[in-house]
């Protein structure tokens, strides 16, 4: 075997995130970002949402969504920077910024959801 590359792991996260993002994010974003603020659909009240977000299953779901979507972003954005701007010589910096950002966001999501009350 060749040197064990980490690329398969990053790609697996990217793909899982891509699937998650494709299936789930459009409806979430449509409701939260457009339909509720613009009053197309009456927004659910604070009490209901707070109750929903307090139960463990939705919290696990939200954590997975944040975690995978962020690693999806990190992987794609890293290659977009390489190819789109031809800055592959900044390889290490880009790598650290992208996956570092994803790890930071994931930890933050974990912190917020763990301490949700």
């Amino acid at each position: 075997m060749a040197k064990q590359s980490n690329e398969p792991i990053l790609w697996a996260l990217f793909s899982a995130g891509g699937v998650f993002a494709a299936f789930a994010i459009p409806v979430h974003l449509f409701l939260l970002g457009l339909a509720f603020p613009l009053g197309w659909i009456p927004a659910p009240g604070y009490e209901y949402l707070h109750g929903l977000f307090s139960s463990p299953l939705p919290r696990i779901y939200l954590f997975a969504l944040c975690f995978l979507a962020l690693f999806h972003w990190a992987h794609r954005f890293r290659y977009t920077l390489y190819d789109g701007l031809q800055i592959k010589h900044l390889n290490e910096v880009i790598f650290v910024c992208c996956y570092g950002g994803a790890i930071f966001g994931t930890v933050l999501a974990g912190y917020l959801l763990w301490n949700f009350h």
Partner: protein
Amino acid sequence: MAETISVEVARYSPERDTEPSSQRYDVPLHKDWVVLDALNYIKDKMDGSLTFRWSCRMGICGSCGMMVNGEPKLTCATFLSDYAGDGSPVRVQPLRYFPVIRDLVVEITDFMNKLQSVKPWLIRGDEKAVSEGEYLQTPEQLDRYKQFSMCINCLLCYAACPVYGLDPVFIGPAAIALAQRYNMDSRDEGAGERMDVLAQHEGIWGCTFVGECTKVCPKHVDPAGAIQQYKLTATIERFKSFLMPWAAGNSEMESAK
């Protein structure tokens, strides 16, 4: 006098020029003429110094690939009349992303080395004696790799691939598709050897699935699909070797057949 069409051809002579220029020729526009016919007409009747590769004229040899109006095409399968309408000339240029040796001829040694590096031939652990007969294969087994076996090495996919253009160490669409052609062949046992080359960054992981290689392929090989499918294979292998180091090998690819 028959109708004519202007063909604007890239010219570059390393002995004379520092960079390419273009030259315009007016050639007869016959309904059944392809771009290669125009080039041969120019070479035969107008300017014998125009230089390009070609051989079979029937989409099999893969040597007449060029950029026609900015798109990679087999010039033997690209009709002049499709470009006739608007009166502007048909632009013919050498395949993009390759160094130009002269006029429309590009340097392809890089691809040849890469192709060889993926061992595009049947690899057997133990070869049967000739007296034992053929390696049999069912139509279903043939169907798994047949699409990838249609590749004619015309390099249109490389000329369509910005990843190759940006970073020429990328092993590229055709070489990976041809590796898959043998990986998926029930008679082959070389998937593990090929993985050493394919599962590197210069192998499949450089690909960002632009997908243009598949769109320009004149033989419908779908190299983009081959690469994505191989990413999945390599990922499963990677996790397997992590979770079960003792079982690492080419089991995944063998079972895929």
